[in-house]
């Protein structure tokens, strides 16, 4: 498809859908309704929205959807750290029932017992999976989960009168950028721990920074490298010795389900991205849920309400958090209920044995991929040589770049020609010319092999026909983009109206 921008489809007079009008009897009673708007508050010129018939709007978005490489159509391996797995269709059907879509969040509790039970039970399951004592589903993304954790940290120390003193949060460079950025919003100074030669957070360096100023240690484990820090308990113990709290970034806990838990590793808090580990679809980037769990001691700081059961009915509990130190609220109402519903259905379709199988197969798939890729001459992966990774690996193709000048970004574009995702890394690139791959439990061995063969083919091209890579993509939806305008205020165009102004100028 060579689909225009939607404004280019506009034809004066066309309608996409008709809107109900007030009945004549109503008009007879109240008039046209809009004359009562104070003149200066009335819209003078209709919004410059396009005018398009319904079949054309549909065709436009159908085509755009076909130009989007969702997990439903694609072998998802190339989105390391994102845990893009199969989102079962039955869960979608359930989440589209009017008993969830047509429910208002402020309805009386007696009219929402179904969804409250689902949220309550999911809380119980999350507790078992993590060892924490209470979850909130308000945070509607992983980063908001981290913000919630950072907010709880602050509340905890406010109650203790230590909020001003405890102004540091420690994380690692291979944890997610939001583990630093979200606490920074809450006013924390961020201290990074770099890896030691094995890729583990450097414990010696850690010891030098943990202090009475440490509010919390927030970390992923395994980190983006797929390396698990086996000494994690020593880290959390040390923080606790100094009176700090420990928050576990389990956005991606896919390799650990039923194998190990936040509690045993000494964490006071953790969060799970239901849209990663628990299979709810990513929706191009949300809506989502960063289910956040805490120990009993920290429960009172959570945003209200929590969901509870009194033996006969489920209810919104405002009591537990009814104290001046509760963080109040992080998102309207009680989060994204359909996402919780889908995660509930997923758990119920797997049980503890299935979750364990998920973790084992995710790790099996990853180590299989790891082994096969390491057999390729130009691929390497820093740290713990010869040992296992958990659910993902950050590779480097520095050798290929040195040999050919082709960068990981070039390879990325070329992979699109084969309909494959391929992700490099968060910035900055601590690992040079990185690739981050995470197969999850969804691909079959054949899928893994196909992905490996494609990578090999492209690496080979880099040596034998580098031009085809430099000018890639050739068979994707569009060709190589000139990104120069995107950082130039005089040229960037974030909306069509802005594009028209600037391209005319």
């Amino acid at each position, binding site marked *: 498809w060579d689909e225009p*921008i939607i404004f280019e489809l506009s034809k004066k007079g066309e309608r996409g859908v008709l809107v109900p009008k007030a009945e004549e009897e109503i008009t007879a009673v109240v008039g046209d309704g809009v004359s009562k708007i104070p003149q200066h508050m009335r*819209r003078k010129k209709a919004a*410059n929205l396009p005018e398009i018939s319904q079949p054309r709007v549909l065709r436009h978005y159908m085509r755009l959807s076909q130009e989007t490489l969702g997990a439903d159509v694609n072998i998802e391996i190339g989105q390391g750290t994102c845990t893009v797995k199969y989102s079962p269709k039955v869960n979608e059907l359930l989440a589209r029932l009017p008993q969830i879509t047509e429910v208002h969040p402020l309805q009386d509790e007696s009219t929402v017992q*179904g969804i409250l039970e689902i949220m309550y039970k999911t809380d119980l399951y999350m507790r078992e999976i993590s060892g924490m004592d209470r979850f909130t589903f308000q945070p509607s993304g992983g980063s908001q989960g981290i913000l919630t954790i950072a907010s709880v940290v602050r509340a905890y120390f406010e109650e203790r009168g230590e909020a001003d003193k405890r102004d540091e949060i420690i994380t690692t460079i291979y944890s997610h950028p939001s583990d630093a950025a979200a606490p920074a919003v809450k006013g924390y100074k961020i201290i990074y721990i770099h890896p030691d030669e094995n890729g583990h957070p450097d414990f010696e360096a850690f010891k030098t920074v943990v202090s009475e100023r440490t509010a919390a240690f927030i970390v992923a484990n395994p980190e983006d490298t797929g390396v698990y820090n086996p000494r994690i308990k020593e880290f959390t113990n040390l923080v606790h010795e100094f009176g700090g709290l420990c928050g576990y970034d389990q956005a991606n806990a896919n390799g650990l389900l039923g194998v190990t838990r936040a509690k045993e590793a000494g964490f006071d808090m953790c969060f799970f991205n239901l849209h990663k580990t628990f299979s709810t679809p990513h929706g191009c980037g949300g809506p989502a849920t960063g289910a956040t769990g805490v120990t009993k001691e920290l429960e009172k700081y959570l945003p209200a309400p929590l969901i509870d059961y009194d033996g006969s009915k489920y209810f919104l509990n405002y009591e537990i958090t009814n104290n001046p130190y509760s963080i109040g609220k992080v998102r309207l*109402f009680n989060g994204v209920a359909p996402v919780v519903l889908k995660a509930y259905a997923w758990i119920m379709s797997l049980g503890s044995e299935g979750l364990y199988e998920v973790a084992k197969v995710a790790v099996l798939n990853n180590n299989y991929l790891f082994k096969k890729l390491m057999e390729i001459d130009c691929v390497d992966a820093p740290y713990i040589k010869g040992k296992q990774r958990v659910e993902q690996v950050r590779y480097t193709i520095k050798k290929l770049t040195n040999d050919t000048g082709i960068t990981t970004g070039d390879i990325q574009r070329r992979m699109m020609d084969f309909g494959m995702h391929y992700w490099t890394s968060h910035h900055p690139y601590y690992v040079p010319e990185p690739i981050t791959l995470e197969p999850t439990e969804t691909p079959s061995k054949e899928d893994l092999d196909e992905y490996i063969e494609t990578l090999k083919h492209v690496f080979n091209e880099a040596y034998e026909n580098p031009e085809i890579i430099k000018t890639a993509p050739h068979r*994707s939806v569009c060709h*190589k983009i000139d990104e120069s305008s995107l950082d130039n205020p005089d040229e960037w165009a974030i*909306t069509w109206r802005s594009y028209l102004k600037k391209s005319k100028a």
Partner: protein
Amino acid sequence: MAINGFKNHPYIPNSVPEVQEEMLRELGLNSLEELHEEIPDELKLKENMNLPKAFKSEYELRRHVEELLSRNKTCKENLNFLGAGCWQHYVPAICDEINSRGEFLTAYGGEPYNDHGRFQALFEYQSLVAELVDMDIVNVPTMDWPQAAATSVRMASRITGRKEILVPRAMDREKFLIMKNYCGPDLILIEVDYDKETGQLDLVDLKNKISNKTAAVYFENPSFLGFIEENGQKISYIAHEMGAISVVGVDPSSLGVLAPPSEYGADIICGDLQPLGMHMNYGGGQSGFIATRDEEKYVMEFPSRLFGIAPTCVDGEYGFGDVAYDRTSFGHHREHGKEYVGTQSALWGITAGVYLATMGPKGMEELGQTIMQKSQYAIKRLSEIKGIKGSLFNSISFKEFVVDFNETGKTVKEINRLLMEKGIFGGKDLSKDFPEFGQSALYCVTEIHTKTDIDKLVTAVEQVINM
């Protein structure tokens, strides 16, 4: 004790034991237990987690969940007048068709090549909302309106270097709490009172509280209590006079008939996309947007992703990409970027785009008009009931309004319970958040309410207050 797995599971191709053996062999391992060798034994679970048994078939799972959900009562079987941040509007079928397309539903972080469609759809959503609010910049959506408002005032604070934010007393308490948590500890929210007669922002109080410490004045139109805030221009003027930024929160369903805030001085506009094609979803349909002028000082303060259109090496072809990526926490600066970015509610952004493209200018205009007519009709009819004031304030309402039940001698709680028995969900009880109103409730009337529906409400209210 050993831990058991679930073999041959439909969601997990490689749960087939024979395949596992083959792959383990490749790795030189003998069993799945030998994986996770990097995790110390003392951290490992020794038996299966204590969870309910998995359903052994998709059918049983579905029947179970459907049974649970059947315990919910919907706003389709019942007549709903709750709004207060989540509104029941009509969702055109095409919106659901597009956002349930597997490709959009399961896409995530692809590049502008393989996810060209995602980039274009979100660029178009930005462009469509931009027309509605008459601004040049709109972001990829945030979690909800409060998040958008909180970020808007943080942007204002960074731009002005100031720390105080003025907000209306007459705003949603939930939103206030979210903004407060997100802005703390460094920003302070200061509440500005409202006029007792009109509900409008009290300009005298505003002038008293504004100062050269004020980063932003935040207000809403329509207000949380549903009426049109008429002094937008004056408020913005007062803010600008003091070097503060005017931030306006807006319900986009009103913008077919109400002036966009950019016309009365707003520098930053925010709001919720939920009315534009999202089902209520028990609160899961919220999605916040932020809009500004196309000025570098604003653009560079957005924490969100901003998709821009760009040329490709083929003449006339459109490509897309992230504008000023390095501002974000995904860029090189991490926590020194602007706040943070992550998964928020992109699918609702795409849906809002579909909605606006489908509605067009005429649809949005008619929508606004219908809502105003129907809500005015409801106010009028309710006012005819003895003991009830259809609207506590004498300002013009858009789709919500405060119904005053004080003279009925009944509490809103009682009234709502009785209405519920008649299949009606009455408005949000304001007695806790606005004790000064006594027994009042916030009612919401939209295009989905027919005259018959409203008449049914009026009859029912009349009955229950006399019970």
